[in-house]
């Protein structure tokens, strides 16, 4: 689907650096992401993956460097940035539907647009049936799907995901990863997906950025040019997976 002539650059990260006092966590990171690209970021545990995402989402101010979205400095009020957290972030006092609509409400979209988009997204992720239930009435995996739907609903310039399926069992993971890829292809968002699971990264992403240990920089970049749906028994898949594993292991 992504053809040879790459679309224009959507996200540009220039010399991103983050220090906590003396501790240098992010060390002069630069990379760019094309519009509609799906990039996975992997790295050893404790390498600062979450700090990296928090800096990208502007939750943490960077110590140096900047993040440009469409050529202007990233700003959650101006750009549509979505962030799917590791833990479920449903608002317990809102129904499933109201939860999915939350991001759009914050951004002050007109009610008609919200309704239209909501019907569309709920249908896509199969949440229509439980649209009027409260989060405590549905399972944890459903709650995570709400967070993913809410993130896609705002038509994000940049969608950040921090190990969204880390706490789910393997079978369900593959199912939800398929769903995620499906959403991404239909809605054409730009996705940055952080995970410590290399198989997951190879399964979903078009490109994988491998992070080093702290102080973190980008150690390598691996293209994943496999047809979808991907088969994780496919020799090429396995080769890429092992390659990335080696990159992480040999720091």
């Amino acid at each position, binding site marked *: 689907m992504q053809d040879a002539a790459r679309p224009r650059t959507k996200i540009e990260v220039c010399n991103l650096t983050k220090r906590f006092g003396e501790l240098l966590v992010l060390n002069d990171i630069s990379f760019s992401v094309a519009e509609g690209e799906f990039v996975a970021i992997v790295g050893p545990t404790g390498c600062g993956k979450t700090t990296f995402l928090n800096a990208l989402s502007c939750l943490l101010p960077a110590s140096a460097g900047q993040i440009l979205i469409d050529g202007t400095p990233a700003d959650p009020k101006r750009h549509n940035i979505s962030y799917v957290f590791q833990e479920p972030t449903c608002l317990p*006092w809102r129904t499933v539907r109201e939860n999915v609509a*939350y991001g759009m409400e914050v951004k002050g979209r007109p009610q008609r647009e919200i309704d239209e988009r909501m019907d569309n997204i709920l249908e896509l992720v199969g949440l229509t049936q439980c649209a009027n239930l409260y989060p405590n009435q549905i399972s944890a995996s459903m709650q995570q799907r709400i*967070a993913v739907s809410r993130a896609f609903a705002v038509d994000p310039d940049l969608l950040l995901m921090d190990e969204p399926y880390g706490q789910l069992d393997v079978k369900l993971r593959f199912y939800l990863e398929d769903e995620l890829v499906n959403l991404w292809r239909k809605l054409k968002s730009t996705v940055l997906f952080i995970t410590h699971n290399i198989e997951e990264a190879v399964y979903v992403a078009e490109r994988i950025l491998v992070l080093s240990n702290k102080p973190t920089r980008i150690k390598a970049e691996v293209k994943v040019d496999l047809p979808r749906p991907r088969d994780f028994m496919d020799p090429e898949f396995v080769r890429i997976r092992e390659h990335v594993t080696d990159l992480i292991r040999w720091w």
Partner: protein
Amino acid sequence: MTAYREVVVRTPLALKVLPVVSVATFFIAWEIIVRTGVVPDTMLAAPSTVTQLLFDKFTNVDPDGALLHQHAWISIQEAFGGYFLALAVGLPLGLAMGWFNVAEGLARPIFEIIRPIPPVAWIPLTIFWFGIGLPGKIFIIWLGGLVPCVINAYVGVKMTNPTLIQMARTYGASDWQIFRQLCIPSALPMVFGALQIALACCWTNLVAAELLAADAGLGFMITMGRRLAMPEMVVLGMFMVGLTGAFIGVIIDKVEKRLLAGIRR
């Protein structure tokens, strides 16, 4: 995919029957203790005597100068006047203190100094300022109800899940939006707790205020019962305070269950 539907959960039998058993046992035991003279009737009145006085007090103003429902009505006015003023001031103050640094910085030190002073200690000053009429008692009751309102609302906001706040921030939510859409709903269970606690404080202080400075009301009735050596009047006054308080508690509980669907099962 399985269909989702609402499921009705039944109250267990034990929770239906045992409350009735417990209340009945309590009153029967009480009646027996007084009737058999284990406790002399100059010290405690039997429930039957209290019930007699209860019906008598609906038509007879003697010896305390007012009918039962007049006492009750005056107390309710005082208590609810103070209670609602406490909610109106305490909850917004507490919520704001929990989220906005300016509010916390300004209000916290003064609040911490006023908080440990028991409302009863304000009674002398209150009599100087307002006399022994309605406004003075409302002021005392208000002070009593204010503290739990502020504390619970404050703690409720502080307990907002920080990940939810981060989530809202990434969508570009303003401080005010986060306060309104996340902090206040998060604080609601604590706020409803405050409604109950504040009500208890208000009732308690109501009796205290009326014991010291009043010419009518349930607390005044209790005082008169003591002065006239009529334990049944003391018990009736206490019973009315308890009953009314419990009744209001039930109403608040019902409202809470309806409003907090989804937060509590």
